[in-house]
């Protein structure tokens, strides 16, 4: 009973496959058919469908033509002197072992460098402030020093003992007269 059922099932499946090999299924197989990649059964069903379906047959012919176009198209060779140029480029772009050694800095080392630089900068700022505080005792003295340092008097255009200063004195005396 079971055998009979299996026989009926397989026969009906085969006939269904033959009859219901749809265009959408066939279209998906065209490329593989062109490459001769279908197995015997797939190929048989495919060819069976193609015999009766003009649309799929047309599509197969067009895909085959595209494949043939590629076959007839030109193949390029590397331009003259290509290898020489590649080898010259390698030598130009490849850094020497000495440079590689010099520039060898793993990430950890680079992080340490940055951290070290930051520490030095902080120490510089803090110690600078401390030195100013030590040199000048008292708040007023500090203010005076700061005012003095920013005062434009430091940059007198004509200091009294210079030639300019003497000229200004003379002119001033003349004006008074």
């Amino acid at each position: 009973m079971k055998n009979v059922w299996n026989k009926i099932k397989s026969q009906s499946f085969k006939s269904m496959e033959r009859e219901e090999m749809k265009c959408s299924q066939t279209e998906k197989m065209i490329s593989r058919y062109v490459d001769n990649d279908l197995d015997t059964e797939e190929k048989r069903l495919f060819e069976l469908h193609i015999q009766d379906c003009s649309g799929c047959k047309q599509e197969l012919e067009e895909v085959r033509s595209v494949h043939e176009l590629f076959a007839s198209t030109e193949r390029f060779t590397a331009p003259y002197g290509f290898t020489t140029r590649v080898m010259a480029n390698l030598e130009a772009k490849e850094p020497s072992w000495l440079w590689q050694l010099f520039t060898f800095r793993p990430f950890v080392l680079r992080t340490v460098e940055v951290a070290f630089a930051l520490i030095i900068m902080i120490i510089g700022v803090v110690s600078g402030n401390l030195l100013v505080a030590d040199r000048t005792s008292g708040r007023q003295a500090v203010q005076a020093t700061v005012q003095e340092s920013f005062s434009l008097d430091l940059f007198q255009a004509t200091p009294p003992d210079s030639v300019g200063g003497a000229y200004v004195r003379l002119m001033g005396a003349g004006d008074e007269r």
Partner: protein
Amino acid sequence: MAFADDGDLINRFKGGELSAFEDVVRKYQDRVYNLCRYMIQDAHDAQDAAQDVFLKAYRNLKTFKPDASLYTWLYRIAVNTCLDYKKKSRPEQAEDESVIDDLTSTEPSPEQRYQSKEIGQAIQLALQKLPESLRAAIVLKEIEDLSYEEIAEVLHTSIGTVKSRVSRAREELRRLLRKKV
């Protein structure tokens, strides 16, 4: 010209022989350049890309595992380089004479040559309209004549995906080249 076996070339290179790499370039320059020409339309850009391929290969050849095949490895570098390649802005050349200069064909007639060139240009234009993944698959299949297995190795994907991409690319090209076909 007969070239040495890939395994010998790699061993010589790993032993510090620079001339072994020169032999690798000589052996594969045409295949790599041809692939770049179809992946990138412009002849000059393709040449730059092909040079980059060998520069990358030189830097990584020491780590190359001998169980893989050298040409699929080179093709992988070439495909990735071409896909990453930012097309430089060049003044448009109406008729690129370099296309004629580097034809390999063994003295075809002027008519055949013209026809082949015309077809080649139509194909190249159509290829540029394909999505990158489809372009790589179809160029490797139709231009480089690789098997589905080899393409899968180059593109680091499954054979089923390759078959599907080749099929979709052909379908797209059929539509684009309908007038030429």
